[in-house]
């Protein structure tokens, strides 16, 4: 009996908590992806690179003497206009054509390659890492949790809630959803649809940039870091249901949890096949996604 409690306290509980923090990290990346995917119908293959962009901009800010807390606010504000310009200058040009899906996919793949090489040229291939702004750890019910991961959990949850409020409870959010649902009708009501699209894309990539700053102290910064979460984030978006806000959040948390717990019992190199097997199963059995009962299909 004591053994079981010890197992729970020292092995299972920390593992689930780790899974939760990784899940929040995945959701932060998946959220922007899901918004751009669901509202603009654009598969943003460069999403991971915007996550990296946020992290690299934060490294530049630190070297100028900016604190972590200020960078957390500044970076999304810097990434947002970049995203806006990319949408207006590039994506919108191919958006109106018949081959929209293929063209936006290829465009963003190209963009991701250019961005990754630009990071390499500007910052070099060596890994960088900002100092952990909240070192030390706290004991929660006998489980040791690093302070920074607790902070990550809190900020992650706050960001998810704030994004939900913005999209579902504000006039701006209503305009975005309306523009996504029926472009012509929304435009005839006087909504500047093209600007709404660009703004939505900018918001989505700014979320990725924000995640970049937030996760850099744990996961470090290097040119190919964009690949890290984006696969898991895509999986979460697909399993949760394409374009579903709740789906991305729930699936992100669930997948990270499955990965964390399964790695206790099976060899870790099976955890990726396991996740993708779940994705395949979901696509076969319920192609609209597990949680896609409230979003539009």
């Amino acid at each position: 009996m004591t053994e079981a409690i010890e197992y729970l306290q020292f092995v299972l509980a920390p593992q689930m908590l780790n899974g939760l923090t990784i899940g929040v990290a995945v959701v932060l990346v998946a959220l922007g992806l899901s918004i751009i995917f669901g509202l603009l119908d654009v598969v943003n293959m460069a999403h991971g690179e915007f996550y990296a962009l946020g992290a690299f901009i934060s490294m530049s800010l630190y070297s100028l003497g900016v604190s972590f807390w200020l960078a957390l606010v500044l970076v999304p504000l810097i990434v947002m206009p970049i995203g806006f310009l990319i949408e207006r200058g590039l994506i919108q040009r191919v958006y109106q054509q018949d081959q929209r899906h293929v063209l936006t996919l290829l465009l963003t793949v190209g963009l991701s390659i250019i961005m990754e090489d630009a990071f390499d040229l500007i910052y070099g291939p060596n890994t960088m890492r900002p100092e952990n702004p909240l070192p030390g750890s706290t004991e929660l019910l006998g489980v040791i949790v690093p302070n920074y991961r607790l902070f990550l959990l809190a900020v992650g949850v706050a960001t998810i809630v704030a994004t939900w409020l913005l999209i579902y409870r504000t006039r701006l959010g209503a305009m975005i959803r309306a523009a996504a649902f029926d472009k012509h009708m929304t435009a005839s009501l006087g909504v500047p649809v093209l600007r709404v699209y660009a703004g939505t894309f900018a918001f989505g990539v700014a979320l990725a940039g924000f995640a970049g700053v937030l996760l850099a102290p744990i996961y470090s910064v290097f040119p190919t870091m964009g690949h890290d979460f984006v696969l898991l984030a895509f999986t979460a978006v697909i399993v949760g249901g394409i374009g579903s806000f709740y789906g991305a959040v729930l699936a992100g948390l669930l997948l990270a949890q499955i990965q964390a717990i399964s790695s206790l019992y099976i060899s870790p190199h099976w955890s990726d096949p396991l996740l993708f097997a779940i994705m395949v199963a979901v696509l076969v059995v319920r192609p609209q996604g597990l949680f896609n009962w409230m979003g539009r299909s």
Partner: protein
Amino acid sequence: MTGKLKKVGAVLSVLLPMAAAGQAAAQSNNPITIGVLTPLSGTYAPIGQQVKWGTELAVKEINAAGGILGRPIRLLYEDEEANPSVATRKAEKLFQSDKVDFLTGVVNSGATIAVGQVAERNDRLMATTVSLSDAITGARCSPNVFRVNAPGGMQALGLAAWIKQNNPKARVFAIGPDYEMGRNTVDGFVKQAKELGLSVVGQVFAPLGEKDYTPYFGQIRQARPDVLYTSTAGNDTVRLFTQLQEYGLRERLTIVGASVAVTAQNIGAIGAAAEGFVTVAGYSPDIDTPENKKFVADFRKAYNADPDLYGADSYGLIYLYKAAVEKAGTTETAKLRKTLEGFTWQTPQGPKSVRAGDHQAVMTVYVLEVRNGRFTIKEKIDGQTAIGPDTCERF
């Protein structure tokens, strides 16, 4: 003076792969081309950078002094991407369409073994200056492949002996990346540790490029180790060490590992978590010889960074190639191979020699410990003691 500058200028432009095509025709002597197939992007890009720098510095010096047999060296780069299937495709391209005379730079051990087969098919020689897997000069050795760096087995022997000497009752846990190199180095280390009577309490393999190691901390905690052995490299080590520190596990563990784990490239990003890390490697910038001091100074002047073992081994390889080609009088594969077998040459690390039986370089290795962000030499192990038996049966 201007003549000399012009000469240096011509040599430099030959070095630039982009300019190479145009410049090659201008050279009176047809250049010797060496393919450098090394990771220029991804997790191992920082290693590839040292390989590139070390190779480039040696080539610059040799070309400035008149080349090999009067022929300048031309380098052709390809991105290995630490991926065997990419590496074989690009090696095939370098051999077939670029007609390189020699190939170097491959980092990923799986890629080195695979590219070795490509070299055999094309009847060309290649060398690795980084790959650790013992199989490269052991079970899967190739008559066309040479290795000039210290392999995993050499390091495992030194490390296990060091642990035994400092903490004979240590509980040891091993972690490695889940591919040829990681499996081979961890197996090699575990075998050595067991032979010396250390208790090995567990081992785990994480995918190459793992982002979060915390899911493995459950297993590590359960095993209650005193010593952690790791053969992760590049960014993977940064994450492993800093996450261990985040979770308060770092200070409870003595971390030892393969020479790839902590290097000049990632030590800055690891920061304080790297303190006390112990490894066995064939090079340290602190080696106190005039040759090494000159090498370190030249390297710093050219790249504004210290050389590490990859830079040094890659630099030394080009001088091996030069010396052997000059002795053989040709770049022709069969004759050059014969010359290389048993060949002794000078490097900033001291003399090295190629063992004829398995094409592994015999070299002095050092027990190194990170102190104040620098590798300091703790012990020196003679090459003949560290190298272990020749297990290659193919030639």
